[in-house]
């Protein structure tokens, strides 16, 4: 399946690629992000993962949300306040 990844957390994810990723059916939001990190030669650490939240197709999601073909996943900061 193909899912689109948009990163609104560049301070944490650096130069990870935005765009479409080809992944096996049943991949979760966390799995997609791990794949993106892996592609960039990096590792998704627990520290970073716990600082992020996900939206899928404009709705709040969790790392366990299973994505479908054509989904658009946005990765955001877990808001700390300000």
């Amino acid at each position, binding site marked *: 399946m193909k899912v689109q990844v948009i990163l609104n957390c560049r301070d944490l994810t650096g130069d990870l690629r935005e765009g479409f990723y080809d992944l096996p059916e049943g991949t979760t939001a966390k799995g997609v992000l791990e794949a993106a990190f892996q592609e960039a030669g990096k590792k998704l650490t627990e520290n970073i993962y716990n600082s992020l*939240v996900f939206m899928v197709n404009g709705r709040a999601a969790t790392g366990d949300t299973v994505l479908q073909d054509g989904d658009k996943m946005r990765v955001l900061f877990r808001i700390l306040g300000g």
Partner: protein
Amino acid sequence: MDNLEYLILEWQVDCMDGYAGKVAIIDLTEKSWKIEDLNPQWARLFVGGAALGARYLYELMPARTPVFAPESVVGFVSGPTNLTKTFLGGRFAVVSKSPVTGGFNDASAGGNFGPFMRKAGFDAVFVKGISEKPVYILLDDGKIEIRDAQALWGKRVSEADALIKEELGDTKVSTALIGPGGEHLSNMAGVIADCHRAAARGGSGAVIGSKKLKGIVCRGDRTVPVKDMAAVAAINKEWNEYANGKGAVPVNKFRTTGTTSDYDSSVYLGDAGIKNWAGAPDDLTDEQIKALTGRVMDPKYKYGKLGCHSCPVQCGAKYHIKNDKYDIKTSRPEYESLGAFGSMLLNGDSDCANICNWYCNEYGYDTLSMGGTIAWLMECYEKGIFTREELDGIDLRWGNSEAILAIVKKICDYEGIGIPLNGASRAAARYFGKGFECLATASGIEIPMHGARYNPGLARTFQYDPTPGRHVKGGLGVPYGHQPPEVKYNYENTGERDKAGLESWEFFNLSGFCNFSGFLLAPGVHYRYMEAIGGYNFTAEDWTNLALRSFTIRDAFNKREGLRRKDFDISPRNVGKPPLEKGPLAGITVDNEKLADNFYAAMGWDVETGMPTKEFLEKIGGLECVIKDLYPEGGSQ
């Protein structure tokens, strides 16, 4: 009570560690002052900041004093962490009655002012009376001067700051000043510390302006006694490990782009206000949202770092905005200000948002109330409630950056439509007799940029904190918004968690710690710092009671004014009445009254009136003044 008395008595033996030990009480009508010893019992029971300020205000200001009367008091209060080398311990509070809510008001800011007030030899200064002519107060190495400020009146904050430094022949001073906003008694007026840190919510700048007081200036070289400076230094040393380990993510994030790093995330989640809280993320383009993030703005504007006293993070930045109309040096707007001048107005023009922020710092206005008021007016204009002619010819369409700047300038210059708008949105609606349906306020205070539909616990805080409309007060708070929907929108049994949330927020507001220290310092470090500074020797129960006492004294000011639960409101749209029809929060309605019922029940207060019970006051201790006022007959209700 036995334990409480023991704690006070024990502490007095090696007294006043963590304090300068002096409080100034100044009467501008009489041009006189008293320098008193800090009340040691109050220092122990209320510690500092908003809580200690509330206790003094409760004593110094008679009940039902009109906000601009000579008897009205405004206080500037440091916290025990200030000037102790404690990391992230640089905040001070401004306390007064609010011209907006008619109740207690506290607002806080960082910068250097709190530590400098202690360098000057004072823990707090309280000002009453009204000067005949404009003045400023100089706290100078243990001495007080009331100095002529006629040449400063009408000046922008940075102009006044520069003139004061020139007059004193000294740049090593710290200022907390009002701008023209405070001089015009605007409900949006705040105090600006060191030209870039604002204690601005609730209109305390107007109270200061009503006294013909331009502000407070501090200088000196005094130090504050610390019980165990070696322990403070040791905790500071540990910080590097935290900053490079478990705290690396928030520390690095705040070091690079500060609070602006959350802007786009907040907009997409629906946490930030969009289109006067009636919009959804897709009302803005991705480019408009991205334009106001630090990642995009920093390369365009940043020319230096900026931060508060004793802070190893330095989350601020110096910005230079240069275009064909403006050439200004300012500070990077905080997240809240970007939301207020960005998504709230459907504005993606970063020059415009930065210049609005500059206007607020220079003219002494609260960015949240300024942005919220313009958003209210934009919606009114869209709905035809106000015509272009009524807005002095300004075409105040959503996202029209030229119009946004024009209306901000009208407000700051106190001209035309800008004059009634100085009252902020609710007072302006009352003045014109229209636009009430477009208000987004809590008891008249414009809602900050973390909404209650995403963070439902904030509905109780916004409506029923003694200072309404704040996201930095106790309760379930912002992090609760990240809970899954089945948790955060479940309104059963929220009271104990809400009450528990008071502890950290009240603690920050009374200690002088930055609110961000909740994640920029390692868990548990705060209380170790407090022990090292002042030898508190508090148990967990003591800290909890301190937080409850802090909340209660702030609230008791309101209760003594005759305000009850029914007197506090929140605009329906901010709790999803009606719910949004699109976006990530479509269909969400928050049960704000149930949250409040749960909270008051958990506190053991009267649920209907929101009154603290006599039993509660006796149990917490140190609140005899409140018992005397609220229960004069000795009854329990």
